[in-house]
């Protein structure tokens, strides 16, 4: 539901049903809303049986990559005699994305239940919820809920009387976008600088503390109890377009839009209806111009492209972008795309961990060029340099941070070249109504 707005009739509130309701935050309140029945059931099942249900549901990772969750869990060798770990990625730092924050603020026990089930399903006795350091309020809410769950024996050495140990701890980050990258997150928990690791080895072989590890996003894990409660078929049935994209998904909507907020719809929902009906269209007197639909790291699309899209993994791919984290950033016709993209590039330059040359130099160079263009001192060669640069920034580094900088910038120049040329030649651009 579109917290802070009232739920729209076309939304399907599964994860967001209790957003805005403080009574859902307590253990008692959560149990009264059907909480922890899925965990109780899970603890009577074989871990592989849980993996199978999640596989059959079609649930895919909600953090950005869209990897099938059940399949990821099945990479963990259950009888290898090693300690296993589950990491819950709550480092939500992707510009445009603010859904995990609401899940943790309003329904902390929903996440705890999902984490506990996930841990059990991969043979882990310990799980860490890595929350970005800026999220003081979600951290307080999660810590309080975890203390309650521990005191009640829901988690701990004998979770729900099952004889199984499931410890869950919050690990607070300290300001670093890159720690949302899975191996950087593991380094950060280990008390290291948050540099991504070279893969392979993949986390399921050697992850946190060198042991087999699975890492899942907050929203992904929060969906799991619903799947166990209602069955894989129910989840799979929530599908409006591609059968490869199932379930409901939270979309965070921000930028130039009448009603920013979180909205939960079934995958495959028409983006046009979403933008104009649920989100209320553009601000008064303005028109939508461009959208980055999956968090800032995915290519920009024009409003004309957006209006044709079905909101699922495949639908966004068809127009050359990605569903990503579901962070929808909207720019209206008063915004200068060169200025916005220069600011985004600056974000990536600031957040580069600086391990790889292509990223450290590329993000900073790209930022300097874009800022020069915005200042009216760019040349046409600058645009070619950006395209050349983007090739060395894509697919050549340890992680995808530099790719994520290049994607919106390159697509933005291709689709709004007129605005860049206008700044270079000093003429007015036809696609900016007001602004720079």
């Amino acid at each position, binding site marked *: 539901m579109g917290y802070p707005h009232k739920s729209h009739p076309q939304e399907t509130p599964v994860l967001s049903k209790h957003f805005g309701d403080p009574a859902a935050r307590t253990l008692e309140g959560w149990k009264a809303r059907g909480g922890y029945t899925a965990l109780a059931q899970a603890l009577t099942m074989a871990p592989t049986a849980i993996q199978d249900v999640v596989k059959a549901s079609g649930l895919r990772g909600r953090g950005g990559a869209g990897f099938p969750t059940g399949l990821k869990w099945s990479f963990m060798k259950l009888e290898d005699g090693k*300690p296993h770990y589950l990491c819950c990625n709550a480092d*939500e*730092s*992707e*510009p*445009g*994305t*603010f859904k*995990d*924050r609401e899940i943790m603020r309003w329904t902390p026990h929903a996440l705890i239940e999902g984490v506990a089930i996930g841990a059990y399903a991969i043979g882990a006795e*310990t799980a860490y919820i890595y929350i*970005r*350091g*800026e*999220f*003081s*309020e979600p951290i307080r809410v999660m810590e309080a809920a975890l203390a309650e769950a521990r005191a009640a024996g829901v988690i701990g050495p004998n979770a729900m009387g099952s004889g199984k140990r499931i*410890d869950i*701890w919050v*690990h*607070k*980050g*300290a*300001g*670093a*976008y890159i720690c949302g990258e899975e191996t950087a997150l593991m380094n*950060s*928990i*280990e*008390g*290291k*600088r*948050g540099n991504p690791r070279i893969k392979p080895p993949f986390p399921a072989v050697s992850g946190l*503390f060198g042991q087999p590890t699975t890492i899942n996003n907050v929203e992904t894990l929060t969906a799991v109890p619903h799947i166990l409660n209602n069955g894989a078929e129910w989840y799979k049935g929530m599908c409006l377009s591609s059968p490869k994209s199932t379930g409901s998904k939270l979309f*965070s*909507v*921000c*930028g*130039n839009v009448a009603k*920013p*907020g*979180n909205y939960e719809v079934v995958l495959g929902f028409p983006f046009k209806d979403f933008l104009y009906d649920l989100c209320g269209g553009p601000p008064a007197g303005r028109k939508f111009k461009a959208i980055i639909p999956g968090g*800032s790291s995915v290519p920009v699309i024009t409003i004309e492209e957006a209006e044709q899209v079905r909101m699922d993994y495949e639908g966004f791919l068809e127009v050359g972008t990605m569903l990503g984290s579901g*962070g929808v*950033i909207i*720019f*209206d016709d008063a*915004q200068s795309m060169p*200025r*916005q993209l220069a*600011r*985004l590039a600056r*974000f990536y330059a*600031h*957040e580069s*961990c600086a391990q790889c040359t292509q990223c450290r130099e590329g993000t900073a160079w790209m930022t300097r060029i874009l800022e020069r263009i915005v200042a009216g001192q760019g040349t046409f060669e600058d645009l070619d340099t950006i395209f050349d640069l983007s090739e060395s920034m894509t697919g050549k580094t340890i992680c995808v941070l530099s790719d994520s900088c290049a994607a919106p910038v390159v697509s933005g120049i291709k689709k709004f070249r007129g605005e860049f040329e206008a700044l270079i030649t000093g003429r007015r651009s036809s696609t900016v109504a007001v602004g720079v």
Partner: protein
Amino acid sequence: MSHGPSAPAHGHGHGGDAAPYVPVFTEGSARRRELADLITRYPSKRAALLPALWMVQQDRGWISEDAMREIGEQLDCTAAYVKGVVTFYTMYHQHPVGRHFIQVCTTSPCLCAGADDVVKAFLEHTGCKELGLTSPDGKYTVIEVECLGACGFATPVQINEDYVECVTPEKVPGILAALGD
């Protein structure tokens, strides 16, 4: 992930005439027990490093080189190692900051909503001459910060621990007044 404040304006850093460092994790202290308890959550002592740094910052407001040495001794790593970690993460202060540390999000979604004007309003009403410099009364430090993850509530501003959402330039004087001293 802040654009960390620059070096202190008026030498209230770790000067030669500074008082001797008082350890945080002294034998028998609550912080020592808290750290020992934290270490049990991890198979490696070093994993308690980020939490230990947070404790020091909470108690002292910033993390000095002496504090880095003390934490290193507690967790069996060198002061240089601790410094390497401190400098990676933008939220750890390597020198004192104002009592109210104000971080205005200016990443693209907030830029659309006019975050630039919010930054200007904070600079104007706090008396901070520029980003990263503490006001002469030691009360405020204002910086720009990268995405706070509250883009639907543009412009979010983090003041010490807490977020203030949907900030506009007009709201700034009221927000500052509510902070008190």
